[in-house]
Protein backbone atom coordinates (compact mmCIF):
# COMPACT_ATOMS: atom_id res chain seq x y z
CA UNK A 1 0.00 0.00 0.00
CA UNK A 2 1.35 3.47 -0.86
CA UNK A 3 1.53 5.35 2.41
CA UNK A 4 0.15 8.85 2.57
CA UNK A 5 2.50 11.14 4.43
CA UNK A 6 1.38 14.72 3.97
CA UNK A 7 -1.80 16.45 2.92
CA UNK A 8 -1.93 19.98 1.61
CA UNK A 9 -5.37 21.21 2.47
CA UNK A 10 -6.69 24.36 0.81
CA UNK A 11 -9.36 25.16 3.35
CA UNK A 12 -10.77 28.12 1.50
CA UNK A 13 -10.42 30.11 -1.70
CA UNK A 14 -11.12 33.34 0.13
CA UNK A 15 -8.33 35.76 0.91
CA UNK A 16 -8.05 39.23 2.38
CA UNK A 17 -5.10 40.13 0.15
CA UNK A 18 -4.80 40.19 -3.64
CA UNK A 19 -1.30 39.07 -4.55
CA UNK A 20 -0.45 39.62 -8.16
CA UNK A 21 1.07 36.16 -8.59
CA UNK A 22 -1.28 34.05 -6.41
CA UNK A 23 -1.10 30.45 -7.61
CA UNK A 24 -4.46 29.71 -6.04
CA UNK A 25 -6.18 32.63 -7.71
CA UNK A 26 -7.67 33.30 -4.29
CA UNK A 27 -10.78 35.46 -4.21
CA UNK A 28 -10.43 38.76 -2.46
CA UNK A 29 -13.32 39.28 -0.13
CA UNK A 30 -11.96 41.52 2.56
CA UNK A 31 -12.43 40.06 5.99
CA UNK A 32 -15.99 38.94 5.35
CA UNK A 33 -15.82 35.36 4.37
CA UNK A 34 -18.84 33.51 3.10
CA UNK A 35 -18.04 29.86 2.47
CA UNK A 36 -19.02 28.58 -0.92
CA UNK A 37 -19.11 24.87 -1.42
CA UNK A 38 -16.30 24.38 1.11
CA UNK A 39 -16.02 21.13 3.05
CA UNK A 40 -17.87 21.30 6.35
CA UNK A 41 -16.52 20.12 9.70
CA UNK A 42 -18.19 16.75 9.45
CA UNK A 43 -16.66 16.11 6.04
CA UNK A 44 -13.27 17.29 7.29
CA UNK A 45 -13.48 14.92 10.27
CA UNK A 46 -14.03 11.95 7.98
CA UNK A 47 -11.29 13.10 5.63
CA UNK A 48 -8.77 13.58 8.46
CA UNK A 49 -9.51 10.16 9.95
CA UNK A 50 -9.07 8.49 6.57
CA UNK A 51 -5.84 10.37 5.92
CA UNK A 52 -4.54 9.20 9.29
CA UNK A 53 -5.55 5.64 8.54
CA UNK A 54 -3.55 5.86 5.30
CA UNK A 55 -0.51 6.90 7.31
CA UNK A 56 -0.59 10.71 7.06
CA UNK A 57 1.13 12.49 9.93
CA UNK A 58 1.43 16.00 8.59
CA UNK A 59 -1.10 18.49 7.30
CA UNK A 60 -0.49 21.88 5.78
CA UNK A 61 -3.52 24.11 6.21
CA UNK A 62 -3.55 26.72 3.52
CA UNK A 63 -5.87 28.73 1.31
CA UNK A 64 -6.69 31.49 0.41
CA UNK A 65 -6.19 32.67 3.93
CA UNK A 66 -6.92 29.99 6.51
CA UNK A 67 -7.96 32.41 9.26
CA UNK A 68 -10.83 33.75 7.21
CA UNK A 69 -12.65 30.52 7.98
CA UNK A 70 -14.49 31.22 11.19
CA UNK A 71 -14.28 27.55 12.16
CA UNK A 72 -10.51 27.30 11.56
CA UNK A 73 -9.85 26.35 15.16
CA UNK A 74 -12.32 23.48 15.00
CA UNK A 75 -10.55 22.27 11.87
CA UNK A 76 -7.25 22.52 13.70
CA UNK A 77 -8.66 20.53 16.62
CA UNK A 78 -9.82 17.76 14.30
CA UNK A 79 -6.27 17.24 13.05
CA UNK A 80 -4.74 17.78 16.47
CA UNK A 81 -6.96 15.10 17.99
CA UNK A 82 -5.48 12.66 15.46
CA UNK A 83 -1.89 13.61 16.40
CA UNK A 84 -1.10 15.35 13.14
CA UNK A 85 1.82 17.70 12.87
CA UNK A 86 0.09 20.87 11.69
CA UNK A 87 1.53 23.67 9.55
CA UNK A 88 -0.31 26.83 8.70
CA UNK A 89 0.57 28.62 5.47
CA UNK A 90 -0.65 32.14 6.07
CA UNK A 91 -0.07 35.74 5.08
CA UNK A 92 0.04 36.48 8.82
CA UNK A 93 -2.21 39.52 8.70
CA UNK A 94 -5.06 38.02 10.73
CA UNK A 95 -2.95 36.53 13.50
CA UNK A 96 -3.97 38.31 16.69
CA UNK A 97 -3.22 37.81 20.35
CA UNK A 98 -6.06 35.35 20.75
CA UNK A 99 -4.90 33.12 17.89
CA UNK A 100 -1.29 33.22 19.07
CA UNK A 101 -2.22 32.44 22.66
CA UNK A 102 -4.51 29.61 21.62
CA UNK A 103 -2.00 27.95 19.27
CA UNK A 104 0.91 28.63 21.60
CA UNK A 105 -0.46 25.90 23.86
CA UNK A 106 0.33 23.25 21.27
CA UNK A 107 3.71 21.77 20.41
CA UNK A 108 2.70 20.28 17.06
CA UNK A 109 2.16 23.60 15.28
CA UNK A 110 4.33 25.56 12.86
CA UNK A 111 3.81 28.52 10.57
CA UNK A 112 4.94 29.36 7.05
CA UNK A 113 4.43 33.08 6.65
CA UNK A 114 4.56 34.79 3.26
CA UNK A 115 6.67 37.91 3.06
CA UNK A 116 7.64 39.55 -0.22
CA UNK A 117 10.18 42.11 0.93
CA UNK A 118 10.29 45.53 2.54
CA UNK A 119 7.07 47.43 3.20
CA UNK A 120 6.85 49.11 -0.18
CA UNK A 121 7.63 45.95 -2.15
CA UNK A 122 5.44 43.72 -0.01
CA UNK A 123 2.39 45.95 -0.32
CA UNK A 124 2.94 46.47 -4.02
CA UNK A 125 2.87 42.72 -4.56
CA UNK A 126 0.16 41.98 -1.99
CA UNK A 127 -2.10 44.68 -3.35
CA UNK A 128 -3.30 45.89 0.04
CA UNK A 129 -1.87 48.91 1.90
CA UNK A 130 -1.15 48.21 5.54
CA UNK A 131 -0.60 44.48 4.99
CA UNK A 132 3.13 44.66 5.78
CA UNK A 133 2.62 46.01 9.30
CA UNK A 134 -0.07 43.41 10.00
CA UNK A 135 2.20 40.59 8.83
CA UNK A 136 5.02 41.93 11.00
CA UNK A 137 2.70 42.01 13.99
CA UNK A 138 1.57 38.46 13.27
CA UNK A 139 5.17 37.23 13.19
CA UNK A 140 5.92 39.07 16.42
CA UNK A 141 2.96 37.45 18.17
CA UNK A 142 4.02 33.98 17.03
CA UNK A 143 7.55 34.72 18.19
CA UNK A 144 6.30 35.66 21.67
CA UNK A 145 4.52 32.36 22.15
CA UNK A 146 7.47 30.50 20.58
CA UNK A 147 5.64 28.92 17.69
CA UNK A 148 8.17 27.80 15.05
CA UNK A 149 7.97 29.99 12.02
CA UNK A 150 9.52 30.13 8.57
CA UNK A 151 9.34 32.95 6.07
CA UNK A 152 8.40 31.97 2.53
CA UNK A 153 9.15 34.33 -0.30
CA UNK A 154 8.31 33.90 -3.95
CA UNK A 155 11.24 35.64 -5.50
CA UNK A 156 10.85 37.47 -8.79
CA UNK A 157 11.97 40.62 -10.60
CA UNK A 158 9.70 42.82 -8.51
CA UNK A 159 11.21 41.83 -5.16
CA UNK A 160 14.73 40.79 -6.22
CA UNK A 161 16.07 44.03 -4.74
CA UNK A 162 14.48 43.11 -1.39
CA UNK A 163 16.75 40.10 -0.91
CA UNK A 164 19.17 42.03 1.38
CA UNK A 165 16.21 43.24 3.47
CA UNK A 166 14.90 39.69 3.76
CA UNK A 167 18.37 38.40 4.70
CA UNK A 168 18.60 40.94 7.51
CA UNK A 169 15.06 40.26 8.66
CA UNK A 170 15.74 36.53 8.83
CA UNK A 171 18.93 37.18 10.78
CA UNK A 172 17.33 39.61 13.22
CA UNK A 173 14.39 37.33 13.92
CA UNK A 174 16.48 34.14 13.74
CA UNK A 175 13.91 32.69 11.37
CA UNK A 176 14.70 30.57 8.34
CA UNK A 177 13.88 32.14 5.02
CA UNK A 178 12.92 30.02 2.06
CA UNK A 179 13.19 31.60 -1.37
CA UNK A 180 11.19 29.93 -4.12
CA UNK A 181 11.41 31.16 -7.67
CA UNK A 182 8.28 32.39 -9.39
CA UNK A 183 7.87 29.58 -11.89
CA UNK A 184 4.30 28.48 -11.57
CA UNK A 185 1.78 28.85 -14.31
CA UNK A 186 -1.39 28.52 -12.30
CA UNK A 187 -3.86 31.07 -11.05
CA UNK A 188 -2.67 34.65 -11.38
CA UNK A 189 0.86 33.26 -11.70
CA UNK A 190 0.08 32.87 -15.41
CA UNK A 191 -0.17 36.62 -15.80
CA UNK A 192 3.06 37.17 -13.91
CA UNK A 193 5.35 35.11 -16.12
CA UNK A 194 7.24 38.23 -17.16
CA UNK A 195 8.28 38.66 -13.54
CA UNK A 196 10.25 35.41 -13.46
CA UNK A 197 13.97 35.92 -12.83
CA UNK A 198 16.27 35.46 -15.78
CA UNK A 199 19.09 32.92 -15.71
CA UNK A 200 21.75 35.47 -14.74
CA UNK A 201 19.71 36.66 -11.79
CA UNK A 202 19.11 33.09 -10.64
CA UNK A 203 22.82 32.29 -10.92
CA UNK A 204 23.63 35.42 -8.91
CA UNK A 205 21.06 34.51 -6.31
CA UNK A 206 22.61 31.05 -5.93
CA UNK A 207 26.03 32.63 -5.35
CA UNK A 208 24.63 35.20 -2.94
CA UNK A 209 22.74 32.58 -0.98
CA UNK A 210 25.90 30.51 -0.67
CA UNK A 211 27.93 33.47 0.57
CA UNK A 212 25.43 34.56 3.21
CA UNK A 213 25.01 30.98 4.38
CA UNK A 214 28.78 30.77 4.91
CA UNK A 215 28.27 33.72 7.22
CA UNK A 216 25.52 32.01 9.18
CA UNK A 217 22.36 33.06 7.34
CA UNK A 218 19.33 30.79 7.52
CA UNK A 219 18.31 31.74 4.00
CA UNK A 220 17.91 28.86 1.60
CA UNK A 221 16.90 28.43 -1.99
CA UNK A 222 14.26 25.99 -3.01
CA UNK A 223 16.00 24.82 -6.17
CA UNK A 224 16.91 21.40 -7.60
CA UNK A 225 20.21 19.99 -6.28
CA UNK A 226 21.81 20.18 -9.70
CA UNK A 227 21.91 23.97 -9.49
CA UNK A 228 23.18 24.39 -5.95
CA UNK A 229 26.56 24.21 -4.24
CA UNK A 230 26.58 20.97 -2.23
CA UNK A 231 26.36 22.67 1.15
CA UNK A 232 23.21 24.52 0.14
CA UNK A 233 21.15 21.56 -0.94
CA UNK A 234 18.11 20.92 1.19
CA UNK A 235 17.54 17.30 2.07
CA UNK A 236 14.76 15.95 -0.09
CA UNK A 237 12.84 13.11 1.43
CA UNK A 238 10.36 12.64 -1.37
CA UNK A 239 11.37 12.95 -4.99
CA UNK A 240 9.33 15.59 -6.76
CA UNK A 241 7.84 16.60 -3.39
CA UNK A 242 6.11 13.24 -3.24
CA UNK A 243 2.94 13.77 -5.21
CA UNK A 244 1.00 10.53 -5.46
CA UNK A 245 3.79 8.88 -3.48
CA UNK A 246 3.15 10.42 -0.11
CA UNK A 247 1.46 13.71 -0.75
CA UNK A 248 -1.83 14.91 -2.14
CA UNK A 249 -3.70 18.17 -2.32
CA UNK A 250 -7.22 18.69 -1.02
CA UNK A 251 -9.12 21.56 -2.54
CA UNK A 252 -11.83 23.53 -0.70
CA UNK A 253 -14.65 21.64 -2.44
CA UNK A 254 -13.25 18.21 -1.58
CA UNK A 255 -11.47 17.54 -4.85
CA UNK A 256 -8.38 15.41 -4.30
CA UNK A 257 -5.65 16.65 -6.54
CA UNK A 258 -2.02 15.74 -7.11
CA UNK A 259 -1.01 18.85 -5.20
CA UNK A 260 -2.56 22.03 -3.95
CA UNK A 261 -1.27 23.94 -6.95
CA UNK A 262 -3.15 21.84 -9.46
CA UNK A 263 -6.59 23.30 -8.85
CA UNK A 264 -7.05 24.60 -12.39
CA UNK A 265 -6.38 21.27 -14.03
CA UNK A 266 -9.42 19.04 -13.92
CA UNK A 267 -7.34 16.21 -15.38
CA UNK A 268 -5.16 16.35 -12.25
CA UNK A 269 -8.11 15.78 -9.93
CA UNK A 270 -8.26 12.14 -8.91
CA UNK A 271 -11.73 12.31 -7.36
CA UNK A 272 -13.91 14.11 -4.84
CA UNK A 273 -14.41 12.97 -1.29
CA UNK A 274 -18.11 13.79 -1.53
CA UNK A 275 -18.36 10.97 -4.06
CA UNK A 276 -15.61 8.54 -3.07
CA UNK A 277 -13.59 7.98 0.07
CA UNK A 278 -10.09 9.42 0.30
CA UNK A 279 -8.83 5.88 0.79
CA UNK A 280 -10.43 4.71 -2.44
CA UNK A 281 -9.13 7.72 -4.37
CA UNK A 282 -5.61 7.48 -2.94
CA UNK A 283 -5.24 3.76 -3.51
CA UNK A 284 -7.28 3.14 -6.64
CA UNK A 285 -7.53 6.22 -8.79
CA UNK A 286 -6.15 5.83 -12.28
CA UNK A 287 -4.35 9.17 -12.01
CA UNK A 288 -2.42 8.40 -8.83
CA UNK A 289 -1.53 4.96 -10.10
CA UNK A 290 -0.31 6.41 -13.38
CA UNK A 291 1.89 8.88 -11.51
CA UNK A 292 3.27 6.14 -9.28
CA UNK A 293 4.25 4.24 -12.39
CA UNK A 294 6.48 7.04 -13.67
CA UNK A 295 10.14 6.19 -13.67
CA UNK A 296 12.75 8.87 -13.17
CA UNK A 297 14.95 7.08 -15.68
CA UNK A 298 12.45 8.15 -18.32
CA UNK A 299 12.64 11.83 -17.46
CA UNK A 300 13.23 13.99 -20.51
CA UNK A 301 15.89 16.58 -21.28
CA UNK A 302 18.54 17.41 -18.74
CA UNK A 303 16.63 15.60 -15.98
CA UNK A 304 17.08 12.28 -17.78
CA UNK A 305 20.86 12.70 -17.70
CA UNK A 306 21.20 14.11 -14.22
CA UNK A 307 23.08 12.45 -11.39
CA UNK A 308 20.38 13.54 -9.01
CA UNK A 309 17.44 12.23 -11.00
CA UNK A 310 16.71 9.34 -8.64
CA UNK A 311 16.36 11.52 -5.61
CA UNK A 312 15.29 14.82 -7.16
CA UNK A 313 12.80 13.16 -9.47
CA UNK A 314 12.89 16.19 -11.76
CA UNK A 315 11.78 18.71 -9.11
CA UNK A 316 8.26 20.12 -9.41
CA UNK A 317 6.43 17.81 -11.78
CA UNK A 318 3.44 20.09 -11.93
CA UNK A 319 5.60 22.86 -13.42
CA UNK A 320 7.03 20.36 -15.89
CA UNK A 321 3.53 19.25 -16.81
CA UNK A 322 2.37 22.79 -17.35
CA UNK A 323 5.43 23.70 -19.39
CA UNK A 324 5.62 20.59 -21.54
CA UNK A 325 2.23 18.84 -21.14
CA UNK A 326 4.17 15.81 -19.95
CA UNK A 327 4.75 14.44 -16.48
CA UNK A 328 8.21 13.45 -17.69
CA UNK A 329 9.18 16.85 -19.09
CA UNK A 330 12.42 18.44 -17.86
CA UNK A 331 12.60 20.97 -15.06
CA UNK A 332 12.53 24.21 -17.03
CA UNK A 333 15.08 26.00 -14.84
CA UNK A 334 17.61 23.15 -14.93
CA UNK A 335 17.07 22.80 -18.67
CA UNK A 336 17.77 26.48 -19.21
CA UNK A 337 20.93 26.30 -17.13
CA UNK A 338 22.02 23.19 -19.01
CA UNK A 339 21.33 24.74 -22.41
CA UNK A 340 23.45 27.72 -21.44
CA UNK A 341 26.30 25.54 -20.16
CA UNK A 342 25.87 26.73 -16.60
CA UNK A 343 25.46 23.47 -14.71
CA UNK A 344 28.24 21.89 -12.67
CA UNK A 345 30.96 20.13 -14.56
CA UNK A 346 30.41 16.38 -14.68
CA UNK A 347 26.92 16.78 -13.35
Amino acid at each position, binding site marked *: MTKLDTIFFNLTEACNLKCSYCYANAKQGGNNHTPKNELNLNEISILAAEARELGAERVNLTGGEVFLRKDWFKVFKIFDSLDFSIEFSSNGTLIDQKIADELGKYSNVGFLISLDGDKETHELMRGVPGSFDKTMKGIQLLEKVQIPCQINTVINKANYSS*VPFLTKFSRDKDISLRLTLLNCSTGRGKESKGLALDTDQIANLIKYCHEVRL*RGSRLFLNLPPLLLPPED*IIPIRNPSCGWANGLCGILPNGDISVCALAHEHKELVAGNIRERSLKDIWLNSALFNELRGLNSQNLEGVCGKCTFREICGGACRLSAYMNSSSFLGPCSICQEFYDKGLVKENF
Partner: protein
Amino acid sequence: MAEIDPKKLKDLLEKSGIERMASNWCLFCGASKGAEAMANPFEKADMGQARELIASGVINDFASRLPAELSAASWCLFCGASRAKSPLEAVSQPGALKNENIDKLAQDILKLSH
Protein backbone atom coordinates in the same frame (compact mmCIF):
# COMPACT_ATOMS: atom_id res chain seq x y z
CA MET B 1 27.46 2.83 -21.04
CA ALA B 2 30.19 2.57 -18.44
CA GLU B 3 31.23 -0.89 -17.30
CA ILE B 4 29.96 -1.64 -13.84
CA ASP B 5 31.43 -4.24 -11.57
CA PRO B 6 29.13 -4.61 -8.55
CA LYS B 7 31.59 -6.84 -6.73
CA LYS B 8 34.36 -4.28 -7.09
CA LEU B 9 32.07 -1.60 -5.79
CA LYS B 10 31.01 -3.70 -2.84
CA ASP B 11 34.64 -4.43 -1.95
CA LEU B 12 35.49 -0.77 -2.17
CA LEU B 13 32.62 0.19 0.09
CA GLU B 14 33.32 -2.44 2.69
CA LYS B 15 36.99 -1.52 2.91
CA SER B 16 36.21 2.04 3.81
CA GLY B 17 34.87 1.03 7.22
CA ILE B 18 32.91 2.40 10.07
CA GLU B 19 35.18 5.36 10.76
CA ARG B 20 33.62 7.33 7.92
CA MET B 21 30.20 7.37 9.51
CA ALA B 22 28.73 10.80 10.04
CA SER B 23 25.30 12.02 9.10
CA ASN B 24 21.74 10.80 8.78
CA TRP B 25 20.77 12.49 5.57
CA CYS B 26 22.90 13.35 2.62
CA LEU B 27 23.08 17.10 2.50
CA PHE B 28 24.03 16.96 -1.13
CA CYS B 29 21.21 15.03 -2.63
CA GLY B 30 18.90 14.34 0.29
CA ALA B 31 19.09 10.59 -0.02
CA SER B 32 17.26 8.90 2.79
CA LYS B 33 18.78 7.29 5.82
CA GLY B 34 20.12 3.89 5.00
CA ALA B 35 21.21 4.91 1.57
CA GLU B 36 24.44 6.61 2.48
CA ALA B 37 27.79 4.92 2.40
CA MET B 38 30.96 5.20 4.31
CA ALA B 39 33.15 6.14 1.40
CA ASN B 40 32.94 8.02 -1.80
CA PRO B 41 33.55 5.43 -4.48
CA PHE B 42 33.35 8.07 -7.16
CA GLU B 43 35.96 10.39 -5.78
CA LYS B 44 38.23 9.80 -8.69
CA ALA B 45 35.76 8.19 -11.02
CA ASP B 46 33.85 9.98 -13.70
CA MET B 47 30.31 10.93 -12.88
CA GLY B 48 29.03 9.07 -15.89
CA GLN B 49 29.85 5.85 -14.13
CA ALA B 50 28.23 7.14 -10.98
CA ARG B 51 25.04 7.79 -12.89
CA GLU B 52 25.06 4.29 -14.32
CA LEU B 53 25.58 2.78 -10.90
CA ILE B 54 22.67 4.72 -9.52
CA ALA B 55 20.41 3.94 -12.46
CA SER B 56 21.23 0.24 -12.49
CA GLY B 57 20.05 -0.20 -8.92
CA VAL B 58 23.41 -1.56 -7.73
CA ILE B 59 23.79 1.22 -5.22
CA ASN B 60 20.27 1.06 -3.87
CA ASP B 61 20.52 -2.66 -3.51
CA PHE B 62 23.80 -2.45 -1.67
CA ALA B 63 22.62 0.36 0.55
CA SER B 64 19.52 -1.57 1.54
CA ARG B 65 21.70 -4.37 2.86
CA LEU B 66 24.05 -2.18 4.87
CA PRO B 67 24.01 -2.86 8.60
CA ALA B 68 22.29 -0.12 10.55
CA GLU B 69 25.51 1.18 12.06
CA LEU B 70 26.90 1.84 8.62
CA SER B 71 23.87 3.64 7.37
CA ALA B 72 25.13 7.10 8.21
CA ALA B 73 28.16 8.47 6.47
CA SER B 74 30.12 11.41 5.23
CA TRP B 75 29.81 10.37 1.64
CA CYS B 76 26.70 9.67 -0.29
CA LEU B 77 26.14 6.51 -2.25
CA PHE B 78 23.34 8.01 -4.24
CA CYS B 79 24.97 11.06 -5.67
CA GLY B 80 28.61 10.26 -5.06
CA ALA B 81 29.21 13.82 -4.14
CA SER B 82 32.09 15.03 -2.03
CA ARG B 83 32.11 15.37 1.72
CA ALA B 84 28.86 16.60 3.16
CA LYS B 85 28.65 19.00 6.03
CA SER B 86 25.80 19.97 8.24
CA PRO B 87 24.51 23.51 7.66
CA LEU B 88 26.18 24.67 10.86
CA GLU B 89 29.52 23.10 9.95
CA ALA B 90 29.34 24.88 6.65
CA VAL B 91 29.40 28.29 8.32
CA SER B 92 32.98 29.35 7.80
CA GLN B 93 32.60 32.98 8.84
CA PRO B 94 30.38 33.08 11.92
CA GLY B 95 29.44 36.56 13.01
CA ALA B 96 30.10 38.00 9.57
CA LEU B 97 26.48 38.44 8.66
CA LYS B 98 26.57 42.15 9.38
CA ASN B 99 24.54 44.73 7.49
CA GLU B 100 27.54 46.08 5.65
CA ASN B 101 28.55 42.58 4.52
CA ILE B 102 25.05 41.80 3.33
CA ASP B 103 24.88 45.07 1.41
CA LYS B 104 28.31 44.48 -0.11
CA LEU B 105 27.40 40.96 -1.22
CA ALA B 106 24.13 42.24 -2.65
CA GLN B 107 26.02 44.91 -4.54
CA ASP B 108 28.78 42.64 -5.81
CA ILE B 109 26.80 39.51 -6.55
CA LEU B 110 23.18 40.53 -7.04
CA LYS B 111 24.32 43.76 -8.74
CA LEU B 112 22.07 45.82 -6.52
CA SER B 113 22.97 49.38 -5.71
CA HIS B 114 22.23 50.90 -2.31
